[in-house]
């Protein structure tokens, strides 16, 4: 994070009534710069603890604005083959919930600005113990949670407790979320809204551009929260197109694929940060 960005954030911080969260900081800074955020997804512990730490620590310098860190789960039902394999690599190398939280803690020692959102499934959190998890996550410096299998019907499980710990619960809206359901989805949302661009699993088909833009503008009428778009976004070109009308662009499977195709840990780091830089360049230029 550059000195100029730091200064911009401090200014905004002073103008806000409550202590702004890292996510609020981030989105208001980028709004001033008139560009979308680049959100990267990597699975914690993929391919191994050490490489994963190097990957994570280098993301802000490569141009990532918000970090999504996956908590690996044995049965990732909403994920396509790329992220399934990433979770398996991480678990095979001994990744645990505690180690994932530890990664965040270590990251925070060198970066107190870049928001980190943990993404995953409910069971590993449930098993860890919801209160214990939220306490540890807040201490480690986690800013938000995306838990795929917790729809608003189960808000009392984790969403509401997270909010009490000062952790945002990021809600997913999808192409199947109709007007009737949307208020329910938005009711306890915080941080940002994650718009799932296609009905399907991660790493699948690319979204249809026209339909996507219409969906995002429809969503914007009902929420003041920033809107991130993810699922099926792989290239700088796609990121640039979607970044024109969304507040954030999420890239996951394409980065995870870099790890799978890498021949050595160094190669993995180089490939991932290389693709991040390309994507960062395109989101920075997309509204010019």
């Amino acid at each position, binding site marked *: 994070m550059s000195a100029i960005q730091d200064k911009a954030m401090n200014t905004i911080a002073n103008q806000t009534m409550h202590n702004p969260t890292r996510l609020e900081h981030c989105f208001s800074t980028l709004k001033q710069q008139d560009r979308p955020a680049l959100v990267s997804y990597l699975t914690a512990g993929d391919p191994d603890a050490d490489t994963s730490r190097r990957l994570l620590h280098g993301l802000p310098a490569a141009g990532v604005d918000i970090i999504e860190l996956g908590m690996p789960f044995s049965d990732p039902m909403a994920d396509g083959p790329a992220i399934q394999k990433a979770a398996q690599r991480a678990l095979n190398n001994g990744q645990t919930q505690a180690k994932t939280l530890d990664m965040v803690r270590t990251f925070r020692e060198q970066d107190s600005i870049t928001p980190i959102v943990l993404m995953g499934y409910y069971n590993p959190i449930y*098993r860890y113990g919801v209160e214990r998890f939220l306490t540890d996550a807040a201490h480690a410096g986690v800013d938000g949670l995306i838990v795929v299998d917790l729809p608003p019907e189960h808000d009392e499980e984790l969403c509401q407790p997270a909010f009490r710990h000062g952790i945002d619960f990021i809600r997913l809206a999808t192409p199947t979320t109709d007007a009737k359901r949307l208020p329910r989805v938005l009711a306890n949302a915080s941080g940002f809204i994650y718009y799932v661009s296609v009905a399907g699993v991660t790493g699948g088909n690319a979204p249809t551009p026209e339909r996507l833009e219409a969906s995002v503008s429809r969503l914007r009428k009902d929420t003041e929260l920033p809107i991130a778009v993810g699922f099926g976004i792989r290239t700088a070109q796609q990121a640039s197109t979607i970044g024109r009308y969304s507040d954030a662009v999420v890239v996951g499977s394409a980065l995870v694929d870099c790890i799978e195709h890498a021949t050595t840990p160094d190669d993995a780091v180089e490939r991932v940060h290389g693709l991040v830089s390309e994507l960062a360049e395109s989101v920075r230029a997309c509204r010019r």
Partner: protein
Amino acid sequence: MNQPVDVSPSLPDANGLFGNFGGRFVAETLMPLILELQDEYTTAKNDPEFQRNLAYFQGDYVGRPSPLYFAERLTEHFGGASIYLKREELNHTGAHKINNCIGQVLLAKQMGKKRIIAETGAGMHGVATATVAARFGLPCVIYMGTTDIERQQTNVFRMKLLGAEIVPVTSGTGTLKDAMNEALRDWVTNVDDTFYIIGTVAGPHPYPAMVRDFQAVIGHETRAQMLEKHGRLPDSLVACVGGGSNAIGLFYPFLDDPDVHMVGVEAGGKGVKSGLHAASLNGGTPGVLHGNRTYLLQDEDGQITDAHSISAGLDYPGIGPEHAWLHEQKRVEYVSATDDEALEAFQICCRKEGIIPALETAHALAEVAKRAPQLPREHLMVINLSGRGDKDMTSVAHHLGDKFGVKNV
């Protein structure tokens, strides 16, 4: 008590919860569809036309009612309780699975869905789904783990004959849990036109309640048949439990009868203490998987661990949420039977009754072998003979072949 009592469906509650179990733990993409399905099912449940249609297919197509048969030779063999077999293996396709599939396919037609998907373990649910899809002219995709494809070749061929496409699932251990993950991924991708026929009393609400209701025909019939034969209710009910659909189907209409003792038999694999088993209630802890909270086989970090059972149909690391609740309420007793005990009971049933049971069902029979000898002849015990064992010939020959001088079947 001359008439079957209709148990009021007090549970699950509006959120699909049986106490703390059940629920709708699914991706947002699926939520609108699941809510729609719930509405459609509630309507169908109270729609005389739907119920008439269901009864017609249960009768003329499935072959219901299935007999409640007094197993005289098994009774003599064990020398205790009077043993009755509820002959679900005589249903079309050879197991209880079709009861549920008929119900769900009628619902799929009513909702205008164009495509059917399902997961299968032993292949019995896959066969039943492929069967109803053929009958109602809907394309059908069945997800099946590669391990299960290997040990259930006959059923794979049956499904193909019926026109279904089989998608081999290689992720995880290539068994039922992985097939279910893959079916859920298909569903979320094709949510507009696809109906997912879940084969057991698991998954997000309303599946556990809906599948139970379609299977409850087993218990309703048993009740009427026993009243006709003996003028009273049975003393105990025994059924094997994987996901638990045949068991809940038998138990549900008796839940409000405190004098009817119920026993669910989990797959103990090599023994619950060995760690190689599929006994979620006896060897698992509560967690969230496949849309519901229930007892699961999992490690300390909440990662799902592999189930082990000789029977592909019980080889699942979870159990239906209503069973988890009945377990905690202590309304149903849950025990386990090992692979060896099941194989032993399997052979006894073949030799004494001339009935080749499914390996799943053999787990229930193994419990009968332990329990029946301790009880008097007046004790009326009903075992759900949930499926026939033709599909298991390869597995059984693998374990027992030498004894009969047979290497390959």
